[in-house]
């Protein structure tokens, strides 16, 4: 059955096309353009083409920040995998009733401001805060640990903020697993551990990978985690971009930093697509 729909349907497409081109595509192009401009005296930029902004990134101060951000993102991602994968896996194997309950337990924090939740950790980690009081009360430590405003606190905050994405992503792919494949492997002589790595792990790889993307990419830009839990001690690319835009008022340099960060992001996504298959989607939220 053929229904006439040609022109009426393309009209439906128009808003999406317009919106995407006007507010996603062109702005990104514009940012790339700005990144080659010269900084203006007060705000904005002058239209002098220059590579100065990119050269500046190579200065040790900024290069170090990039390396540090990458290191932090990498550490965060590895830890998130180690914590989140088993959680998503076990969660998918719960009974239907408990699955629904667990899902609800996972979703409620999503609805609480992530800032407020981070602030909750400030209460815990603070010098003489909840954790110190408990540890000192139990006699495990004798003086405050000074955990707040340290690198470990930032890593912890990142893990805390991003782990749910990994959990949900792994959960949805374990959920889709055909368990008879695992039975087949066991039947063919693989012990449980081998069957897990040969079958379950490989079959849930797309979920794991999309979890990695959902963890790695944001962790390079979440400046407020470093802000709140790291004080001014831990500076990441995100913090520099924010600083350059607000205090430094150097828009072209912020744009150049963003372009580099975006290129790194695109490489990761491209890599993900290559491993997980061309039409793979980041499935954690879908």
């Amino acid at each position, binding site marked *: 059955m053929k229904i006439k729909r040609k022109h009426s349907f393309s009209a439906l497409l128009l808003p999406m096309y317009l919106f995407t081109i006007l507010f996603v595509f062109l702005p990104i192009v514009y940012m790339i353009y700005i990144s080659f401009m010269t900084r203006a005296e007060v705000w904005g930029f002058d239209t002098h083409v220059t590579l100065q902004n990119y050269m500046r990134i190579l200065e040790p101060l900024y290069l170090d920040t990039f390396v540090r951000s990458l290191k932090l993102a990498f550490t965060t991602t590895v830890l998130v995998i180690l914590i989140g994968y088993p959680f998503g896996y076990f969660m998918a194997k719960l009974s239907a009733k408990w699955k629904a309950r667990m899902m609800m337990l996972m979703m409620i924090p999503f609805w609480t401001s992530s800032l407020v939740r981070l602030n909750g950790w400030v209460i815990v980690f603070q010098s003489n805060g909840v954790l110190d009081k408990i540890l000192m009360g139990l006699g495990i430590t004798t003086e405050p640990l000074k955990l707040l405003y340290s690198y470990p606190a930032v890593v912890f905050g990142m893990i805390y903020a991003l782990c749910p994405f990994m959990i949900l992503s792994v959960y949805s792919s374990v959920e889709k697993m055909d368990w*008879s494949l695992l*039975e087949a492997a066991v039947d*063919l002589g693989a012990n449980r551990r081998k069957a897990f790595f040969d079958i379950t792990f490989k079959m849930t790889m797309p979920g794991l990978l999309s979890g990695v993307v959902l963890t790695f990419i944001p962790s390079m830009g979440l400046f407020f985690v470093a802000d709140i839990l790291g004080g001014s001690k831990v500076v990441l690319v995100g913090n520099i971009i924010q600083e350059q835009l607000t205090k430094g008022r150097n828009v072209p340099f912020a744009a150049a930093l963003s372009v580099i960060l975006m290129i790194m992001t695109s490489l990761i996504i491209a890599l993900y697509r290559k491993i997980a298959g061309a039409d793979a989607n980041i499935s954690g939220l879908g």
Partner: protein
Amino acid sequence: MEKAFTSVSAFSKCNEGRIKMAKTVLELQQITKSFTDKTKQTEVLKGIDFSINEGEFITLLGASGCGKTTLLRIIAGLESADTGSVLLEGEDITKKEPYLRDVNMVFQNYALFPHMTVAENIGYGLKTKKVPKKEIATKVQEMLELVQLEGYEKRMPDKLSGGQRQRVAIARAMINQPKVLLLDEPLGALDLKLRRQMQLELKRLQKKLNTTFIYITHDQEEAINMSDRIAVMHDGVFEQVGTPNEIYYQPETSYVASFVGNANLYHKADAVYAVRAESVLINETECTLDAVVIEKSFAGGQLRILFALSDGQKITASRFGIDYDLKVGEQAKIGWKEDSAVRVIANEN
């Protein structure tokens, strides 16, 4: 067991003789299993006793939910029995892990590993046993030849047709030379024509490799075509075990009679007799029962005529061809030769 008549054919007698000489490969003793679902407890297997001989083709025949798949999974070790034991060549394997059992399974949906090629799938069992790569490659080639899939080794499972997947699944299980091969409705997903062809092929493979097959199906034709012996399962018990001939011609219970080949169940006094539709005679000298034609239908190359007897019982007769000069509503006399009615034990249903 009370039987009104017996008609053991020469064929099944000789078959029985052969089986009795063979050695037992698998023995099931008093297997029970129940599942608890919320508050309800369902007994799926109610004490199964059975022994299977080497090289035998055994079919577990039954409607869905009769417990046949659970029994198969208990043999494979994927499910554990509540009580009872499983003996493989005399060794008690009831508590043995599934990956240590010399038993392999062909799964209902094939369960081919989608991320492995055909060759990797087939070679997986040998890989888990740490067989050298070269040897695996040779064996995989042999299996591919055996199931006529040469040249497909690099394919991924999703690029295969249903029949080809089926062959890969069989090759993957057979390469391990299991003492018993379990097949869980392996042809269920195929269309009728392909199913017939695969039936023959499976039978050929089984004879060639002389492997013991335990085969699950709900299709009585398939069971009759392929099996050395059939075990008809119903409600967690074996209703009857026997050669296809015995099951077909000498059903012991009314369930077996009606499930295998849809025999008529004729009640007379306190006894129940099974009469096959093709044995029902119409308007011949033996015919003594008054009947009315109430329905005519054509199915499977046969015309089926449904009669209502004067006492309300319904009897179906079948004839080859598509026409028979009886119209709906017409009166007729029907009956059967004495030896084509088999007295059976009445099941509750």
